């Protein structure tokens, strides 16, 4: 009887406990996962941008003078970034290329990958000149879906790599 009474009294306990802990636990697990994923994406972005800048710095005026196949275009830089940036959503990466001629915003990676404009532009691609490749990346976290009205919110990451044209 005692067992029966206790059992009846404890009925629903686990449901209540589960109900209390489930949401915070889910948020904690999801939060940890999303923070890790966010850091991952950020590091991927910086690595990819560094690769793009490195590509441009060895495709300057001297390289072009040595062989006509050495042209550096916005598309070539964007594709280098895409290759190095596995997992980045191309549509969320907004690329800006800065040389002595000023900043050139080619849009998102998808658009940039189809832009055959020479970059760094002639006259600003001499060895020794600084160039910068920078990008913003809109990181969409699943967590934002849990916040009322913030379902499409994102965090903007900024990555920038400045190099000296080598060649």
């Amino acid at each position, binding site marked *: 009887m005692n067992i029966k009474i206790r059992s009846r009294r404890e009925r629903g306990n686990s449901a209540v406990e589960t109900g209390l802990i489930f949401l915070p636990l889910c948020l904690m697990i999801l939060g940890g996962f999303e923070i890790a994923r966010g850091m*991952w994406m950020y590091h991927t972005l910086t690595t990819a941008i560094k690769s793009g800048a490195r590509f441009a710095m*060895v495709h300057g005026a*001297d390289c072009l003078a040595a062989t006509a196949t050495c042209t550096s275009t916005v598309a070539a830089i964007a594709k280098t970034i895409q290759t190095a940036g596995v997992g980045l959503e191309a549509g969320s990466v907004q690329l800006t290329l800065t040389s002595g001629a000023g900043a050139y915003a080619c849009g998102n990676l998808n658009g940039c990958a189809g832009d055959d404009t020479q970059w760094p532009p002639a006259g600003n691609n001499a060895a020794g000149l600084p160039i910068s490749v920078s990008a913003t990346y809109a990181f969409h976290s699943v967590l934002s879906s849990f916040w009322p009205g913030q379902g499409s919110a994102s965090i903007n990451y900024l990555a920038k790599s400045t190099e000296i044209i080598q060649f």
Partner: protein
Amino acid sequence: MRNLRSKRNQRGQAMVLFALVLPVLLIILTFVLDVGFSYFVSKRAQTAADAAALAAVNQALQQVGPGGQVTCSTADCQSAGVCPVSGNLHNACQYAAANGFSQLGQGGQQTLSIAAGTSQFAPSVPNIPVSYWTQVVAQQTLPQWFSGLISPTGLKPAARATAALRQSQLAGSLYLLNHASDCFVSALDIGLVCGEDFLALGFNGIQTGGGIYMASSNGSGLGLPAIAAGTIAVGGVTVQAPFTYLMGQGGIQNILAGTNWNAAPKNGFTDASLFADPMAGKGQPPPPTGLQDHPVPAGLITGALLGGSPTVLPPGNYYSTLPLLNTALGTPITITGNVTFSDGQNPPCGGFCNYVFYGGIVTGVLSHVTFSPGRYVFAGAQPIAGLPGIGVSVGVNSVVQDLTPLSNGQITANTDAGEIFIFTNANFPGLVLPAAIRNSGLSFPQVQAGVSAGLNPSVTLHGLNANNTSVPAELLPFAPALIWQDQANTTLKYTSNGMLDLSCGTPCSNILSVPGSQQMIIQASQQGGHAGVNLFGMIYGPRGSWLTILGLLPGDTVAGPMQIITGALQMALDASLDIQQLPNPPTRLVAALVQ
């Protein structure tokens, strides 16, 4: 009872679920930890490989100089392998280690492979001809934390970098070499100035087909002795150049002057090798030997009347002497009338003549002097009132020319061997002094280089033409030099192989026996609406020297396809400089990552 049974039935569920989820979690962990770490290591490997490859070629460049030749005896060469114990590849390994990569580093996980050679193309870098290359591959075998579950070999992130020394044509028209630390007495009478590359006094103009490089990183508004890389003082200057590059924070300042400088000067360059003396490491053009002596009594050469056949002056050593006694006077040789330096044959001297002058030469009023293709050494001159003796002084309304005349007032390319004028002193390496000079007890310190002149000179000269087979092999590396100022005639010390002497930590100073001799002067003029001084070739002065273009009247111009390399350029009064691009500019070695 039913509840109890039910609870008992549910025992172990969590374990089953956990067992089912565990592999998935492990795969995620594998991905995150191993692949993430692999990304990190791969990035670090690239940084290490880049630094190492660049360090190797940069050291090789420092060893031979931009104008030198790199071989496997001046820089390390090897097939892909481990680091040598010394040399530029050892230096490369040190850079790699500083960036976290070394052979058998990280408990034996890392490998660093380095290769170097002088083949025309670096491995896997086709179409880019190089003189010397270094390729570094940095790799690390990662510990198999979790990746062993999906891959038996583990991850081995690696990066490769290839750097090279390549011959690069000099793209600029003006190379102004003085750095912020290089000081000399200013023409503005303000004492010592440091870091001056360009000074304009009066109303001057510069037009160049190629760019302008200025090595000073001094910006405007600095306190003396520091002075801006470029100073426009009193008057104004118009500069038209495709580009003007300044090192670091280098800038242009106006003092009571207006400036129209187009394209706008651009600073921020950090690579000092772009602004280094491109001739460093070449050594100096050797003087001729075995020449006959031609003492000039009283230092006077009276040429033929104008309009007639010129007096022929054969190759040899020329110096002024006391009449009858043949004792060297050390005074300049004065040439009047119509003379030609030649052996009288066609082509002169088989295509290339050799002359050495002691004391400098002065051409008289209305004289007409023709220089055949050849090498002309001006080996010192006596100072006058404490001022340096002049190498070539052209008289009022005089003509100095070579065998390639102007066409419609414009200079054209020469097909003959061309000339090189070497301005130096009697101690120039390799120079064999005539007995009269040797025994005179006179000193022949550095002459002032260039072409000084009185009013209205007409000068047309062409530099060495590398395409002509008459140019002696030992002079070919210096083509298309027209004027060469001795590297000993500057405020900085050069070594015998043409490198700046850095044994003092910074470039060592050189004390000149006649202060101011390091100034080269080229006087501008005009003839019939065209430039009166037309030069074709390279004008070279070492770092620490300077070149003054002097114009007396509006329109006075120095023009032609030229490349001017000097410490600083000064434009005075009413001078214009119209530089077209040389068809065959010289080359120099540059170091760069190429892949």
